[in-house]
């Protein structure tokens, strides 16, 4: 049942995603992609539990910690570079 419930969430969020992204103008497609990079860093949330738990053995924790490291690069790098880009988009004075 859990799997079906998760599929439900997947289906709804894909539809929301399609609706939202279609409205993003072409001029913002590069920041959209780097912003998406940052959002895909959400893996960090999953990796945290793996890196921090004790019951799964040291090896699993190290691999989890490496995943935290990688996903953090995505989150921090992605949001910062997107912000840097978006700050440049200006209206005519």
């Amino acid at each position, binding site marked *: 049942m859990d799997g079906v419930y998760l599929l439900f969430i997947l289906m709804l969020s894909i539809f929301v995603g399609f609706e939202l992204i279609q409205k*993003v103008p*072409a001029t913002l497609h590069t920041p959209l992609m780097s912003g998406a990079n940052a959002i895909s860093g959400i893996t960090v949330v999953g990796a945290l539990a793996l*890196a921090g738990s004790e019951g799964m053995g040291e090896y699993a924790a190290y691999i989890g910690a490496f995943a935290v*490291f990688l996903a953090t*690069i995505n989150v921090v790098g992605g949001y910062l570079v*997107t912000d840097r880009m978006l700050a440049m*988009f200006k209206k005519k004075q």
Partner: protein
Amino acid sequence: MIDVISTDLTSTTDLVINFTYVVAAALFILGLKLLGHPSSARKGNALSSIAMLLAIVVTLFDKQIVNFELIAIAMIAGSIVGIFAARLIAMTAMPELVSLLNGIGGLASLFVAWSTIEGNSQLSHFVLIVTFLALLIGGVTFSGSLIAWAKLSERITGKSITFSGQAIFNLLLVATITFAGYLFVTQPELAPSTTTVLYISVGLALLFGMMLVLPIGGADMPVVISLLNSYSGLAACAAGFALQNNILIVAGSLVGASGIILTQIMCKAMNRSLSNVLFSGFKTVVKNEMVIEGEVKPLSAEDAYYVLEAAQSVVVIPGYGMAVAQAQHVMKELQLLLEKNGAEVAYAIHPVAGRMPGHMNVLLAEADVSYEQLFEMDEINKRIHNFDVAMVIGANDVVNPAAREMKGSPIYGMPVINADLAKNVFVLKRGMASGFAGVDNPLFFKPNTRMIFGDAKETLNSMIRQFSD
């Protein structure tokens, strides 16, 4: 999942965590919504980052997490790398950065899947299937993105790399991966240990990612980057299924949807299907019987100035060449001079100009060109015949009239900016080489076209000098 009735401490924490995830999901969605207009986009990005922060902080309250040392080290190290990457990257190198970030995202999901397998011995078939998917998509995203990055930064040739028997090799690879997946999920007694199957699967996934991107040429990079962007989201999504984590699924599928839409837009702008881009590339150009009539008429920058000085309206059509020559800043200077001289200046951006979606827009934004002066192809085509001058800077295939008028041309049917319909066309170009598609461009031979050979930045600079004199 959440047991709402029981009130002991653990489930209260779970409840708080999951409730915060709901808030974070809403903020992610709101953030993307604000990305719908340049004036609100920055706020949208900030909102999205707040959502991420919320999700991360609340996750740390998870009772499962007891060892914070490793986490702290990993997060600090990751933040440092991220800050440096974001601060130091040049705007022209954006496609490289995005493909690297795609790859890192994929790799992170791969390691999450790996750690899940390593840390749990009793996993249901469902979890094993989705874990394998996370491993596979993550691996493909990682190695594919690395190849894309190497092609973009010209560490390897930007041309399509193929070998004979590639199709059969790829088929065999897919079959092997499927078999590995079967062993991974069912774990029959005769099979090698799960860890061995895991290593082999990772290797196969990495190989598959390379095979996917190697045959794709430089001009098709916008499609590949968008697709890998989508994969990095889907990998996070699969990891979310493996960990039964809602927020991973929501955020991952938002990214997946975004990448898929961009991929579609890019394919449409090249009049090709996705499978055509992935599996055939531009086939070697068939000998064209059609003869292009006319002759190439070169013009000096000095003479071009006289035309520009008299022009009432100028449309600039940039391509990848503008990025290479770093000519966006001098173009902005010239724009100001033209405007002071009473001319209207517009920029026409083709969806696949450059190496990634929106590449030209970012470069022009960097040079302080207002986004209100950038127009999409369809908008500009409606009124291109009113422009006195069309200046093509380092673009080729996206202004090729063969797409409109030469049946049998490999790019026939691709929507292009009809630069040739403007009263005068200036093409700023290094030499007479054909574009990435390897197709001759009849635009260069039109009676109203003048070629201004040389480095685009130099050419624009000498025009600026003429204006100042």
